[in-house]
Structure formats: C-alpha cells, structure tokens
C-alpha cells in the first residue's frame, strides 16, 4: 500500500480555492447548533390575565438547533444518539431522523391565580421553564 499512501499524501489537504480560516470556521463555530432560546409570553396575550395575577411575564424558553456529531461531551447524550446520527448521516435507513434538540432540565414556576369562587391561590408548578437542552 506504500504507493497509495504516497499518492494520498501528494493530494492537497484543502482545495486551493478555499482559504484556511474559512475551512476551519466550519468546525470552530458551527451555525445554529442545538441551544436554549427565550420566548417571553405575557398572560394578557393569551387573555388569561383575568385569572392569572402573577407573574406578569412568563418565559418558558425552548430548545432549537441542529445536533452536531460530537453530541456526547457537549450535550451529555447517550451513545444511542451518536449511533442514530451515524445512521442518519450515512442514510443507512431513510426513515431514521436526525437526533432532536429537546429540553433536558426544567425549573418550577410560581403562579398567583383567582379561582372561580373568588378565592386566591398561590401555587408552585414543576417543570414549567426549560433550563438546559440536549440531543436525543
């Protein structure tokens, strides 16, 4: 295989037209990767401000973006996600989708509401605000 190795070494690593900084940029700053986004909602938009007294603004946040190959160390994804990514990239089966960008952790929300009988309730609900994303 010595001939093949030497011939491979002779090939230019990077196409002459593309300069190095552009070439490396695609690895250093991947575009629209999976990450957390804000979505500030006011209950008056939903016309619920007649029964939800507080908070005035609610930011449930959401996860959006593409799942890169190196999902392991960045998103704490299980090995299954990398396997699914490889199946998707090599198109071994067209029905297998790319891994999805979904919330991994949440925080609670405190709500002050007026009940139909006129009583007032302060309640803390679990899992109402996404705080971390992952690829699955």
């Amino acid at each position, binding site marked *: 295989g010595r001939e093949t190795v030497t011939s491979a070494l002779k090939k230019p690593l990077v196409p002459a037209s593309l300069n190095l900084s552009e070439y490396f940029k695609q690895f250093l700053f991947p575009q629209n990767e999976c990450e957390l986004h804000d979505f500030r909602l006011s209950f008056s938009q939903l016309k619920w401000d*007649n029964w939800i007294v507080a908070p005035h603004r609610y930011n449930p946040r959401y996860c959006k973006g593409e799942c890169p190959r190196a999902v392991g160390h960045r998103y704490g994804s299980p090995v299954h996600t990398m396997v699914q990514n490889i199946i998707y990239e090599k198109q071994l089966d067209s029905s297998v989708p790319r891994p999805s960008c979904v919330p991994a952790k949440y925080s*609670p929300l405190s709500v002050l509401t007026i009940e139909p009988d006129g009583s007032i309730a302060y309640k803390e609900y679990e899992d109402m605000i996404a705080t971390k994303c992952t690829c699955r």
Partner: protein
Amino acid sequence: SLASRGGAQMAASAELEPEAEPWSWLQPPDGRDRSGLLPPLFKVLCDGQGGLPRLQPDSRALRYMKRLYKAYATKEGIPKSNRSHLYNTVRLFTPHIQHKEQASVDQVTGPVPSVDLLFNLDRVTAVEHLLKSVLLYTFNTSASFPSAAQCVCHLVLREPESSASKTPPRAPRSGTFTAPFELKKKYKWVEVDVTALLQPLVASDKRSVHVSVAFTCVKDKLQRPSVQDSPFNLVRPSLLLYLNDTSAQAHHRWYSLHYKRSPSQVPDQRGLPACPVGEEAAQRVRSPRHRR
C-alpha cells in the same frame, strides 16, 4: 408488525372521532371525565377555559397575596430558593356569611358577642395536605386604637346548617380554642393560628367551615379584659391555608433541596426511592472509605 398494527388502530380511532380535542386523548379510554386529575393550570392550557366568569376577590386579600407572592417568587415567577418551609400551595378564602349573635357566656368577661363566619373550601383538592392555617385580620384604618394590646381569640366550630337535615342541629362543638395574639399599631396584618382547630376538618375532606369568633383584649396589664366582638374594628378575617400539594405536577421543595446538596445522589428517571433507605444509605456511608 406490532407497531404498525398499533398505529393502524390509533389512526382508526382518530377517524372515528375527527372532532376530538387533542388533550382529550390524554383522557383514560373508558371515557369517564377525570378532569380532576389534571391540575387547574394544565386544564386551562388545554381547553382555554380561562374565560370562565370569576367572582372578584376581596381587594385587601388580593393585596396580601400579591405581597406573599413577591416574598416567595422572583418577577419571572421563579420560586426563591431561600425558603425552607415545605408548602407549595397557599390558599386564601374570604367568608361568605357573617352575622352577629350572642354566643356562650364566658366566666371571666360575661356574655361574649361573636361573629359567625362561613368558609367554603371546595377548591382544596384531595392531594393538598394542610400544614398550617391562620385567620388573617387587618385593621379598619379609620378606627383609633392604642399602640399595643394583648388579645385572646375564642373560636367555636359549628356544624354548617344543612336545611335538608332532619336531625336537630347538634350543640356546636366548642373549639375550646383560644389563640392569644398581640395587636400593634405598626402591624398591618394580624395572623391568628387556627391549625389545631382546622387540621381534622381539612383532613376529613370537609367542604365548608362554620365558625363563631370573639375576642377579649387587654390594652394594659391593670385593666379588666374588655369584651369586643371585633376589637378596634378589625375587618372581617380571611382564612389562609398553607398546603403541601403532593401531586406530580406540583414543585416539591424538599426534593430539590435534598438532591441539590449531594449531586451524586440525583436520582435517574427510573424512579429511585425519594429518600435513601436501608442498604443504599449504608452503601453511601461506605463509599468515602472505598474512595480513600
């Protein structure tokens, strides 16, 4: 093939009920309406019943609850973690009926006029366990009153009048309940702890509480206790219930507090027991030695 058959069944059932609301798919297949299982917030999120007509709450009560909210949560609605108590629900009820009547004679102060209050606790759900309850008084600011006074609150629990009942009303179960408290000019609110009186009622799923309230106050040590049904014109009280909602949708503070301290013990989603018991706890004790 199993999955495809399941999918076909799902598709078939969807064709059968084209108008079904998406959230109704969460309902159990037997069709019985168990909307009580859904927390109120989730119910509204699904079927947009936020527009239901609502009785307007008492403005003083609303002001108190807004202050409580600011003390417990940030502007974005995140519960403040500097609180150690275990309740994740606070409910405030204003009384429906109140009328004055002569109550029992008190050996110290003679006839004690009292005020009758009726609270409707329909909104308390079976999964909400009572931790503390107080009668919340505020002052009628126009009334003049001394800088401080020692008071005692006398409560008598009454069976709610049910017109349909044939049996003569039983004698009111006297809540041999006296709650001392101090009135001070600088306090805007006075809380009279009635937990011991209400605990059995809320635990037995009682839907309404009928109670007569009277006060005896002493402005200074020398004076005889004077009888008032509402000293210094206290405004009619609200009933505050501090509850621990045990449903899965409610935020359980003790849980996050416990697992925040020892990240290695964060339970994985397969539902490890909430608190380490027996072998696991012993194992944890052993692990430091193992690490050494």
